[in-house]
């Protein structure tokens, strides 16, 4: 099968592509059958996901408490409060952006590094890949247990090691330090998920034809050059997936925060998803619905900005 596809793939572009000026032009003719493919997904999604979500949206302009039979329409006042007069929401947003920034950079870099180092299918790579993936298998609640243990000021490993090597001055309250807490959570998040995103990078790397590397080597390219000019541009789709997925994951790191910070978490550990949840628990369903709309807008904006940024690094230079 490999051989035949190869020939086919080789034949068409020559016959088809050069005649069209616009890149997309060649594909303007859509086989009508293609429209059937997304139908099952769209149907399920519309009925069981989008529908309920839209219903939740209707509440965003109300003061519904989540259980009473009656509620009032409050117009856009929920949104007004969120934007201009809500320290808790703003604090959660700030924390979330800090968290996002650290996690996206550290996790993407780390998972790419690991993927490059482990891309070949040797026995040891396979074993290490499995090991690195292991934390992702644990539920976030379990990860939180593990790291609560690590960060504990009295029994935790980090302070014990610091004390053991005479660096008592560096012993910290970690999650209890209001200025640092969110970064310590970010570290736990990277620990738990770097191996998971490594898998995406490995899948991306393995879809790069080996011949490209071979010809680059023949041209005398160094290891760094091969990475820079072959790997990096060609794993663009994987990078885009990893960055976008990590972003969403960072916005929704919910169990981990509740596990590490308690329910409801302190202000220094609150992020947007926990904020919405607390608002909901606090019997302010209308306000929580409004918060989730703002939340989705923020995710959309951040994702778009990131798409730009990733493209720039990939094609810009």
């Amino acid at each position, binding site marked *: 099968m490999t051989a035949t596809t190869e020939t086919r793939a080789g034949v068409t572009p020559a016959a088809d592509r050069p005649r069209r000026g616009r890149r997309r032009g060649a594909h303007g003719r859509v086989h009508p059958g293609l429209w059937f493919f997304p139908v*099952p*997904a769209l149907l399920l*999604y519309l009925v069981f996901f989008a529908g309920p*979500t839209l219903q939740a949206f209707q509440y965003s302009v109300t003061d519904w408490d989540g259980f009473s039979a009656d509620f009032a329409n409050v117009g856009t006042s929920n949104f007004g409060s969120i934007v201009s007069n809500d320290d808790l929401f703003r604090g959660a947003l700030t924390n979330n952006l800090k968290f996002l920034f650290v996690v996206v950079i550290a996790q993407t870099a780390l998972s790419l590094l690991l993927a490059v180092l482990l891309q070949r299918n040797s026995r040891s790579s396979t074993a290490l890949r499995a090991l690195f993936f292991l934390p992702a298998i644990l539920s976030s609640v379990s990860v939180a247990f593990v790291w609560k243990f690590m960060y504990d000021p009295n029994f935790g490993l980090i302070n014990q090691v610091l004390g053991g090597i005479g660096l008592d001055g560096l012993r910290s309250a970690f999650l209890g330090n209001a200025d640092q807490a969110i970064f310590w959570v970010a570290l736990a998040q990277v620990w738990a998920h770097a191996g998971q995103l490594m898998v995406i990078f490995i899948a991306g790397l393995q879809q790069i034809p080996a011949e490209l590397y071979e010809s680059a080597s023949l041209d005398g390219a160094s290891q760094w050059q091969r990475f820079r000019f072959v790997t990096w541009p060609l794993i663009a789709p994987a990078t885009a997936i990893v960055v976008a997925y990590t972003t969403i994951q960072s916005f929704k790191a919910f169990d981990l925060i509740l596990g590490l910070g308690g329910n409801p978490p302190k202000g220094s550990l609150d992020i947007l998803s926990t904020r919405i949840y607390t608002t909901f628990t606090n019997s302010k369903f209308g306000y*929580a619905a409004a918060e989730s709309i703002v939340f989705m807008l923020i995710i959309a904006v951040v994702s778009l900005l990131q798409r730009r940024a990733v493209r720039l690094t990939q094609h810009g230079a």
Partner: protein
Amino acid sequence: MVGSLGRRVVLGVYALLIIIPLLVVLTGSFKTTEQLFDAPFGPPSTLAPTNYGSVLTDASMGTAFVNSTVVTVTAVALTLVIGSLAAYGLSRIPGWKGFALYGFLVLGMAVPAQSNMIPQYVLWQRLGLLDSRLGLVLVEIVATLPVAVFILTGFMRTLPRELFEAGSIDGAGPWRTYRSIALPVSLPSLAATAIFLFVIQWNDLLYPLLFIHDPAKVTLPLALLNFQGEFLTNYPLLFTGVIVASAPLVVAYVFLQRYFVAGLTAGSVKG
């Protein structure tokens, strides 16, 4: 970029960072609460699997295990089928129409579960899907479909168009192209997506908590909650539960990892 020695150092250090906390969990599962706090990082004094006995003989555990397996395997398989169909179609429908549908589906990732869980609860109740494995499968599918479509479409877009065009010239309809070209070439990304879905669905707590009340239908995360008291948390039992509950995922991972190797061959198709 990284020499052989450097490579080993990086991998070695990272391996330690992963192993040490996991060792705390593993050794912890052989300790009593007292011992765990006494020397959290020390070796257990005994390897007697007392905690494992308590976890495995717990009546709810066996049922939960079966339920989790049935629900997760079914939901992952269906999500992959539905998701890859959508991804294939959307990656090949050009222009704004395809992108709009894709954007609409993928937007679901940004929706916090808390914001639609009440309307969902009401809908499931009306359809008689509460307290049923089918209902749980359904909610897991729709909740993870956006992620699946997102990852799979991303990968399918990277497949050279020529691959499919060759097919159409031979007279193969999109269904045959999907089955005999797109799917085989996408095995690595399907495997990667499958692992993601397994992890998300297997560990999901929110939906089972909300939708399942019947003890005969509980899943593992719910059963694990039984080990957690209000004020007295039995860490060793919890750690044991974590290990027992994670074991199937390790198996799933090892199984799916083989397809990365297959992916290497599939990838060469494009050369």
